[in-house]
């Protein structure tokens, strides 16, 4: 009843258009802010979500860009590798050791005559994604285990075998074949047995265990230069624009395909930032208009408020009433915009899931949290404005 009477006395200030302007402004501001949060969350989902994870992409083989300036000096110094290790996007760095001796691989079987010159590489064990009990070597070992890139087998099966009239080979067949590995030494050729124990997409070279590499390099090396020229790096997010920027700045290159997301990512970041800033500025203006509106209402009902206070209406009663007049509109706007963003999110979800990209079907907790935070800001703004002007009116 009291509120009904107060509503009759304290009419909202005449500026209906102003009110509408504030409502529209706040709605757009909130839409932009919520959308920015939601897009950011979606993008993170796409990048880091388990269903979207691409483990191969997280390992980058990095080497110096070979051009006229770096020609003949394309090795990586210890300082350069240390610096790379220190970067925030780096999880781990391993040095790829190349073989520094001449070697070839050939088959024992006449039915499958096969011979090729070859070079090996080795990498610390934590970078290997093949689980094989045979992946170990010492001088007593019967054979050298090798990991071949899938690419090699594809190249053999779909090109080489046709041109040489050789049978196609499955991974399992290849793993059963024992090859003859010949190493050229100053004292003639040393032959050993070798066997492929697994295939990998991670590093595109023929890998042997680090122990074998160290042993063989020490024994048969034809030059003593031991500076590494390639490293493998593990990163959470190969699309990180910082990473791409760093590589570019240090004359380093990697598989461009793996870092191609960084470009999209930069665009998304820019769009999100613009959305943020625009939303924040609009929120500020909307708050200002709301504040002015409250001020206008209170001052246009100056006489009524004065008499109400004279008759015994408490400042608390008036503040509570004015809060009830102004705040529900804000809550309503927040709910409506949240609903719109939820609708948009569902739409994005259904479109992306057709393309096998998975984001949540509903708005994220972050968006809801943002909504709560903004409600709090609105509440505080309303409350302080009302307090300020009601108190001012009494003086």
């Amino acid at each position, binding site marked *: 009843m009291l509120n009904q009477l107060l509503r*009759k006395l304290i009419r909202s200030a005449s500026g209906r258009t102003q009110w509408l302007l504030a409502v529209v402004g706040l709605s757009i501001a909130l839409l932009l802010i919520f959308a920015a949060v939601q897009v950011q969350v979606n993008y993170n989902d796409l990048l880091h979500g388990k269903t979207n994870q691409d483990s191969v992409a997280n390992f980058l083989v990095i080497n110096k860009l070979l051009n006229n300036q770096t020609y003949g000096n394309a090795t990586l110094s210890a300082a350069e590798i240390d610096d790379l290790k220190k970067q925030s996007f780096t999880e781990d760095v391993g040095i790829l050791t190349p073989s520094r001796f001449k070697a070839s691989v050939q088959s024992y079987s006449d039915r499958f005559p096969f011979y090729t010159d070859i070079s090996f590489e080795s990498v610390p064990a934590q970078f290997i994604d093949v689980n094989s009990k045979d992946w170990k070597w010492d001088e007593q070992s019967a054979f050298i285990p090798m990991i071949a890139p899938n690419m090699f087998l594809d190249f053999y099966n779909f090109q080489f075998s046709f041109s040489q009239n050789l049978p196609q080979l499955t991974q399992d067949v290849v793993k059963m074949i024992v090859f003859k590995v010949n190493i050229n030494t100053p004292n003639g050729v040393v032959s050993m047995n070798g066997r492929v124990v697994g295939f990998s997409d991670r590093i595109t070279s023929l890998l042997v265990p680090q122990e074998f590499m160290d042993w063989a390099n020490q024994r048969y090396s034809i030059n003593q230069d031991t500076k590494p020229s390639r490293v493998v790096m593990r990163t959470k997010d190969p699309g990180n624009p910082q990473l791409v920027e760093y590589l570019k700045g240090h004359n380093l290159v990697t598989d461009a395909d793996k870092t191609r997301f960084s470009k999209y990512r930069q665009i998304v970041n820019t769009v999100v930032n613009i959305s943020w800033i625009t939303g924040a500025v609009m929120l500020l203006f909307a708050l200002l208009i709301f504040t002015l509106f409250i001020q206008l209402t209170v001052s246009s009902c100056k006489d009524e408020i004065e008499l109400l206070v004279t*008759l015994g209406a408490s400042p*608390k009663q008036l503040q509570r009433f004015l809060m009830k007049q102004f705040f529900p509109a804000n809550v309503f706007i927040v709910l409506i915009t949240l609903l719109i963003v939820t609708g948009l999110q569902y739409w994005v979800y259904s479109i992306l899931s057709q393309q096998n990209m998975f984001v949540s079907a509903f708005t994220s907790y972050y968006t809801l949290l943002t909504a709560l935070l903004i409600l709090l800001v609105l509440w505080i703004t309303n409350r302080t404005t009302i307090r300020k002007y009601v108190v001012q009116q009494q003086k």
Partner: protein
Amino acid sequence: MQIRLQNVVPVPLREKILQRKSEVWNTNIVFDQGHWIKIKAPSGTGKTTFIHTLYKIRNDYSGDVWWGNQNSREVTGDALAQIRQQKLSIIFQDLRLFGELTARENIELNRVLQEPFYEGAMIDEMAEQLGVTHILRQRAGLCSYGEQQRIAIIRSLMQPFDWLLMDEPFSHLDQENTRKAAALIADECSKRKAGFILMDLDEDDHFNYFKRVEL
């Protein structure tokens, strides 16, 4: 609640007041709970100033006004509202109704500002007694002064109080209506065991006063 004045002198009237003898200004005077006080105040002696000082609408005075054991200067904001809702009711000389509200709404407002002292039906009962039932639905701004004054009287009686402050409460009423209004006021004060302070220009016998003083 006892009302006590300690050497109260309104600043704008200082010269005038100090020149003459007053039983109220610049003295120590105590009004005990339940006493019915008549203060006779010729024009220009600060009648309305006195009522407004007691009700704390004006602060431009020297000395102190005590509400019970509280100095009224120190009571502000919600505490002041509490005093006006529970302890002090008032009938202004200039009536001070909301012109945009109906007569009933004006009364209702003072009824629901606090936990209601009376049911809403009491409005009709009192309006009946004072002969203003027919204007209850009318906008207060359109009522005659006589009607407005009776609305203001009913409004002041809708709330709980220890003291009713009245500033020429019958100035717009004829004898018959004054008699009815005084009877109602006397009734309501008795019910509450409340006192009142009635300010008027002349002597009168509307009530059985406990004390008559001159301003």
